[in-house]
């Protein structure tokens, strides 16, 4: 579930407030949004794609909260890792053209 809105990185664009499919955030004028309903987070990670500055971190734990350390997340490369691996940038899509999913259908084990 969502555990971090970095106060240092957030540019208060409110993109996450608009894009969260579960309405987890509350907007605060000229300030970073607050995680108002943390338990409503469905751990879909999509807010991270829409954040233009990698200010958000969704923990992989779907049923429990954990404390996270922003510095550690930066050092381990986990902050913004989903966005980078997908190829999104500045809140805009990218990377579709590099999708190698078709390899999963090469050995005939799976058929659509």
């Amino acid at each position, binding site marked *: 579930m969502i555990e971090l809105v970095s106060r240092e990185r957030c540019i208060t664009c409110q993109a996450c407030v608009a894009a969260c499919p579960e309405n987890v955030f509350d907007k605060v004028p000229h300030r970073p949004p607050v995680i108002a309903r943390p338990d409503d987070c469905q751990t879909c990670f999509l807010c991270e794609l829409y954040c233009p500055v990698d200010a958000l971190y969704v923990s992989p734990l779907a049923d429990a909260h954990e404390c996270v350390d922003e510095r550690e997340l930066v050092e381990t490369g986990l902050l913004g890792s989903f966005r980078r691996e997908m190829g999104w940038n500045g809140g805009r899509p990218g990377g579709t053209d590099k*999708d190698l999913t078709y390899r999963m259908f090469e050995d005939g084990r799976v058929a659509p």
Partner: protein
Amino acid sequence: MTMPAPLKGTVTTVRTADVLVLGGGPAGVWAALTAAKHGAKVVLAEKGFVGTGGATAAGNTTMIHVAPRTAGREAAIKRRLAHAHGLADQKWIERVVDDAYLRLNTLADWGYPYPSDPSGRSYRGSLRGPDYLRFMRSRVRKAGVEVLDQSPALELLVSDRVVAGASGINRLTGKPWTVRAAAVVIATGGCAFLSKALGTNGLTGDGLLLAAEAGATFSGMELTGQYGIAPAFSSVTKGIMYFWATFTDQDGNVLERAGDRQSVVAYNLVKGPVYAVIDKASPHLQEGMRRGQPNMFLAFDRKGIDPFKQRFEVTLRYEGTVRGVGGLAIDEACATNVPGLFAAGDAASREHMVGATSGGGGPNATWAMATGTWSGRNAAAFARQTGGSHSRRITAAVGRAGLRPSEKPDAAITAAELIAAVQEEVLPVGKTFFRTGARLRASQTRLDSFWSAARAYLSTRSAPAAEIVRAREASAMIATARWLVASAIERRETRGLNRRLDFPEADPAQARCLNSGGLDQVWVRQAPSARALAS
């Protein structure tokens, strides 16, 4: 009928449209685009955000992309029929894959950046959810569709038994909205009962409840014993990777079983913990998975697990009618039995396409594209026939449970408690993956009492938007659970996703669809002909 009582006493924004589409996942965006292309004025209202809402946005989806008159097309159709347990319809499968083929190619014409396979051919058999829906968001807006994000519908408007629009609330502003429309498309997805299966928590059966309040019929609600495999700690129900997995028990004994991957996990999960390791994927394929579907690995990377080498505990998360089969019964025009009300995607029963088996992944996504397109086209045609005077009709708001209690509201009846109670009847593998008549009847009694409580006392009149929405979600989940359970009681056989321990064999005499519906009185009956859905 009573006249609509305004919500919260706030001034409601009233819009007029030819077609109102509820739900902005794949089915909804194709419905909106197509209705607009046919000249309709369209409003698209999505509970979350068009681009991130729904099961597709959070995942990746396989597509059936097969050209007409090819061996690939014949093989794909044959494969569907072979898995359908006698309930699919070849003509429907053909028309769905043929229509989706056109849509997938249209995406390329619009500049969708498909990847190329090693031979340099554009590969259109898979879509990355966030990219696909973000792209469709742009197309929908360019087409002149008015998009209402964060705007769940709460109830339908009806005029002389014809659907005439809907009302809802904006979750961010708390402001109510109303759209008066000549036709409404329900594309709100299925119901996964807040199981946290990836991307499904917005899918609480809201559109099913709305439609039922207008008198709509369902089909296939018993074909819902469908779960997704996820690492035990996580939401990531990406099932495809387990084709290359070895499952083991606590002591490391390899678990094998005839049937699909979910069955291996389910039969053993009722005995103890189950583990998996993705040890059968070649380095070439591992790279394909990583570079294709990063969200598959997020949970592992962030937990410090190498899923190709280390075994991890797995669980099953319930996927309900999202990757199960049942939903609103529709005819070839995607019309429900209620005039002016259409349905598409996972909100509709997919029996035509997948029979009694899960259409998770490719078949459902392909179905969403085709039925989205057809529902939009036919809703626009219905609106043209109705003419422009529809906005002056006298309408009634038909929402009841959670909105307008029949008795004096009781604050002791809360949405949170009702949701926990309904989850207890539906989510456990021992109740829904494996069904028995006795357990189903016990669930039915309890679910009936939950419904009575919600119907009589659940109210959120002056509550914040989030709580109003939650009360309707609770009501929708109870209603959906009751159709599921009542239908499963009636299907006294094991067929596809209805596994009855007390009737372990398929019964040829029951190779028919089961229709259902009703709110205060739930009903189930066999479809009038072998595959007829709408009654």
